[in-house]
């Protein structure tokens, strides 16, 4: 399940150190640019559509130094794409 947001994810990982003082907020990223941070996911989403419309890709991500695990308790087939272990 390769993501289409590889560039935005790379930007997030690159900028995480500078964003760490805002842990818990939601960052809005488009391409290689950090656009803004928001206290609520929905506000970041709304701003993403306002700035990027339907044509430019954007990502909304919670700023987490130690990401909380996200679980799906059901069995799924072996994966075709795994994230890096580090």
């Amino acid at each position: 399940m390769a993501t289409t947001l590889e560039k935005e994810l790379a930007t997030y990982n690159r900028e995480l150190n500078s964003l760490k003082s805002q842990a818990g907020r939601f960052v809005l990223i488009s391409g290689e640019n950090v656009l803004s941070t928001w206290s609520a996911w929905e506000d970041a989403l709304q701003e993403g559509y306002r700035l990027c419309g339907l044509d430019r890709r954007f990502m909304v991500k919670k700023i987490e130094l130690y990401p909380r695990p996200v679980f799906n308790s059901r069995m799924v087939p072996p994966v075709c794409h795994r994230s890096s272990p580090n």
Partner: protein
Amino acid sequence: MPSIITQLTPEGAVVEALVGVSQHRSAVMRGLQVPVPEPVRLRFLVDTGATSTNISQGRLAGLNLPSIGVVDLYTASSGSTPVQCDEYDVSLVFPDSVPAPWGIASINVIECLPLDGPIDGLLGRAVLSCAILTYNPFANVVTISF
């Protein structure tokens, strides 16, 4: 308070929801006079073990959504290495809620690999955290009250 009352099935507690374009995306589409896709009706297994709402790969194709996020998802078969999955912003409406349909205008859902059984997704704690979940074992009924 709006409630979904569902009989427990061999698959578990299953509810139907209309999954559509999120309120924020549809507002932009209407502003640009782009047709907003019709919501799709999907079957969700109520799953208190799922952090977020998950939807099987391909079920959202008709909505033509771009991904707006990425999460590392741990599943029952992923072991200690998570699966990287895309997130999408959608609206959820539960048409069978009484006394009236109840919904969420914008929520993020995770697209996962196809789930086993006749279900399209998992209704996880991101939605259930807005509700009181009651299981009546004598009537074999699950009630979700929002």
